[in-house]
């Protein structure tokens, strides 16, 4: 890849981080908790975005960032106080900056309107403020040192150039450093060298001012150089050589006049490169070589810096980290997955070969299994990321939704550092976004309504993440009005989801909002056309192997609780025998296992069967039949039944032949080399090396509900 392209990618990554810091800093200021360093950090973030953008010529971004930076500079200097109204404007500016970055990322995609407004707001903030920083160019920058030389001009011999080139013009450059010049480590030699690059030159050094030793100050400047330069470079270019030392020296650049050289006094005429006659002490190297102890103090800069640092409240201790390409981590995780499978296969084969359970080999294999599991956990942890990256987008989203719905809301987050596998994090954003929209749009009341019931006008939505029994739990709670249970009931009856006479607990009513078909365009208020029903949210969470529930207190608010597996790469499954095949049923879907008696099975309708479970009836599905591995119409024998819960909260009973045991399995994709198969979520490789399919419980239940049975299959019969 072109190196600049690679750096551009780095730039956009860095922008994301900077935008995150920017927002975080502004939010801190909003709560009043910020200090000078917070303001500086915000300024630096905008400044850095602008700087990088300039390097890539991203003009619209640079222009806006500049306006933003100017305003932040005013805050930084104390000229503009960070009051709430100011912070609100800055927050909007931060959002707009993010839009610019995204537009630039997308190759300059057109931005929405609103730029003029936010720019006007920013400028309004700074217009009333006297800029504390002086104007763009200081007087010095423009002067080219036309002042005449202090030393006697006429006495200066003009160095003659040997073999003067006929065509190029000749210039006379006179240069007298002041002592301050050397303090900034500027030096005549590099300057002379630069001049020499421009063409042919001859140099004279006037040492007339060098005092005698007793008056000699090693830090002083006593030399004057006169250079005759033949070059085709412009005068500006010659002057540019002295760019850094303007003001710290006297110099002039003039067209050379041919003049008879008077008798030189005590200057050695040198050609070309060596500007300093050997006889002269070179003050430039003086300070560093001076044997006299300098009057400058030499404190330990680190100690000073640390003190200054602590004062600024540097909180996070630096943790050693390295950057690793994601491909490598993914590959490592795959390999470890193979290792786990292989170890299981090895263990199985060894045990099958009749080795005693107590033998050294068996014990060694147990150790191996333990080690392998630990390696797997450690490796999975590498890819684990804090949920912060997902939580970070929420405040901005909340601001937008609040603005659109006329609500006032504050986001509080907890447990941002809770880690979860990268694969889960990526898929978390969407359901979280929908739930947040829902909370603000439906859950929170308008400021007036809130005032009327004695709540603060600003609603609070809290996002909390935590680990709980091997899973990650994310809660979204609001202090809004809670679920209107009567209304939910009515709608459910209307939609035919429940009978009008059905008796439901409060919790069951609350969970009706997840039922498919519950939400329609009516109930989803069109928050800029992106409303989504909670059933879709529930399904996407279940696709991740998770569950979601709701707890509501009328008038006080609601809490959604999502429970997700820590990783999508492995699964806790119940290994079962179905016909001659082995299947895996995800543990999360299983409620309990049953051993029904023959009398518990009842026929219902032409083809269906139901199972009686503690007085209630649930559909009974023969898995072998559903998979098409058996063409019988009656369930063969009692078998074992797993009571499972579908995505909609409905229950069903899955009949299998036997349960082999619970196992953590590595998930293998079926789509990778084949395609999605209905009823099957994925595959895994068992200890015997065979592929076992992982059941998609929801799909299985829905498959069964179809009128036509699945088409008969020709099976591969193992010989």
């Amino acid at each position, binding site marked *: 890849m072109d*190196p*600049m392209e*690679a*750096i551009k990618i*780095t*730039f956009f*990554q*860095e922008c994301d981080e900077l935008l995150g810091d920017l927002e975080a800093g502004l939010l801190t200021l909003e709560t009043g908790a910020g200090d000078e360093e917070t303001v*500086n*950090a915000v*300024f*630096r973030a905008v*400044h*850095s975005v602008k*700087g*990088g953008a*300039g*390097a*890539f*010529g991203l003009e619209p971004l640079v222009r806006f960032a500049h306006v933003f930076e100017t305003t932040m500079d005013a805050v930084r200097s104390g000229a503009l106080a960070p009051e709430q109204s100011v912070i609100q404007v800055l927050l909007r500016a931060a959002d707009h900056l993010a839009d610019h970055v995204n537009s630039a990322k997308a190759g300059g995609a057109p931005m929405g309107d609103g730029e003029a407004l936010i720019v006007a707001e920013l400028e309004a903030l700074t217009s009333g403020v006297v800029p504390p*920083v*002086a*104007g*763009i*160019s*200081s007087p*010095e*920058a423009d002067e080219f040192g036309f002042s005449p030389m202090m030393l006697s001009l006429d006495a200066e011999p003009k160095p003659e150039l040997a073999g003067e080139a006929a065509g190029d013009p000749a210039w006379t450059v006179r240069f007298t450093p002041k002592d301050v010049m*050397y*303090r*900034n*480590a*500027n*030096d005549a*030699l*590099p*300057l002379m*060298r*630069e001049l020499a*690059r421009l063409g042919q030159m001859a140099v004279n050094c006037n040492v007339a001012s060098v005092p005698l030793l007793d008056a000699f100050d090693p830090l002083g400047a006593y030399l004057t150089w006169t250079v005759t330069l033949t070059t085709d470079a412009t005068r500006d270019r010659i002057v540019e*050589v002295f*760019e*850094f030392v303007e003001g*710290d020296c006297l110099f002039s650049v003039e067209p050379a006049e041919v003049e008879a050289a008077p008798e030189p006094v005590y200057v050695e005429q040198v050609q070309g490169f060596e500007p300093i006659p050997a006889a002269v002490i070179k003050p*430039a*190297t003086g*300070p*560093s070589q001076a044997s006299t102890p300098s009057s400058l*103090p*030499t*404190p330990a*800069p*680190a100690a*000073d*810096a*640390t003190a*200054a*640092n602590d004062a*600024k409240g*540097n909180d996070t201790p630096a943790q050693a980290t390295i950057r690793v390409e994601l491909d490598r981590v993914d590959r490592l995780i795959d390999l470890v997955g193979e290792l786990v499978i292989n170890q299981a296969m090895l263990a199985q084969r060894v045990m099958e070969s009749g080795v005693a359970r107590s033998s050294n080999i068996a014990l060694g294999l147990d150790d191996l299994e333990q080690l392998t599991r630990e390696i797997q956990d450690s490796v999975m942890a590498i890819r684990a990321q804090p949920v912060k990256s997902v939580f970070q987008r929420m405040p901005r989203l909340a601001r937008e939704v609040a603005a659109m719905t006329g609500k006032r809301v504050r986001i509080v987050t907890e447990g941002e550092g809770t880690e979860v596998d990268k694969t889960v994090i990526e898929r978390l954003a969407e359901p979280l976004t929908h739930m947040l929209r829902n909370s603000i749009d439906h859950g929170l009341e308008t400021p007036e309504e809130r005032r009327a019931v004695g709540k603060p006008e600003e609603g609070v939505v809290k996002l909390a993440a935590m680990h709980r029994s091997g899973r990650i739990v994310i809660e979204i709670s609001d202090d809004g009005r809670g679920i209107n249970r009567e209304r939910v009931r009515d709608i459910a009856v209307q939609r035919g989801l429940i009978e009008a006479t059905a008796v439901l607990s409060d919790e069951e009513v609350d969970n009706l909002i997840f039922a498919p078909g519950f939400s329609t365009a009516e109930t989803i208020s069109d928050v800029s056309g992106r409303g989504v029903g909670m059933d879709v949210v529930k399904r996407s969470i279940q696709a991740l192997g998770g569950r979601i529930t709701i707890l509501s207190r009328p008038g006080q608010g609601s809490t959604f609780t999502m429970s997700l597996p820590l990783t999508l790469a492995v699964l806790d499954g119940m290994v079962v025998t179905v016909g001659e095949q082995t299947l895996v049923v995800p543990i999360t879907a299983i409620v309990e296992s049953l051993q029904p008696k023959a009398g518990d099975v009842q026929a219902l309708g032409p083809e269906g069967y139901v199972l009686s479970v503690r007085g209630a009836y649930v559909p009974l599905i023969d898995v072998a039949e559903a998979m098409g591995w058996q063409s019988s119409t009656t369930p063969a024998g009692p078998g074992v039944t797993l009571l499972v819960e579908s995505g909609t909260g409905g229950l069903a009973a899955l009949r299998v032949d036997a349960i082999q045991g619970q196992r953590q399995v590595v998930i293998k994709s079926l789509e990778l080399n084949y395609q999605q198969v209905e009823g099957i979520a994925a595959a895994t490789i068992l200890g015997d090396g065979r592929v076992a399919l992982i059941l998609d419980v929801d799909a299985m239940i829905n498959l069964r509900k179809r009128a036509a049975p699945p088409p008969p299959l020709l099976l591969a019969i193992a010989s």
Partner: protein
Amino acid sequence: MTMVILTVDDSRTMRDMLRLALAGDEFEVVQAVDGLDGLDVLSRNEPDVIITDINMPNMDGFGFIEGVRRTERHRSTPILVLTTESDGAKKQRARDSGATGWIVKPFDPVKLIDAIRRVAA
């Protein structure tokens, strides 16, 4: 003779761009992420030229330059500051702190190398 250049900037993008601009046999690049880190790296390296940004966390460019000038060894090491646009006041303050010269961001790699040559002993 390879010149050792110490670049100090909190922006990863900027550090990458400097490294790219100074790629080749002529320069060897050593990096630091802010003024504090810069002083630390400086204690273990002998740069011929230092290039530093101004706005950085933990210790800004001015503090860093002053810190460099206080160390015996590096009192005469040329220091170039990176500034956005020709902000005269910043330049002057940098100079007062002890900076040798400056480079305007976004920088032209050719001008960057010119500036280095103009100050390198």
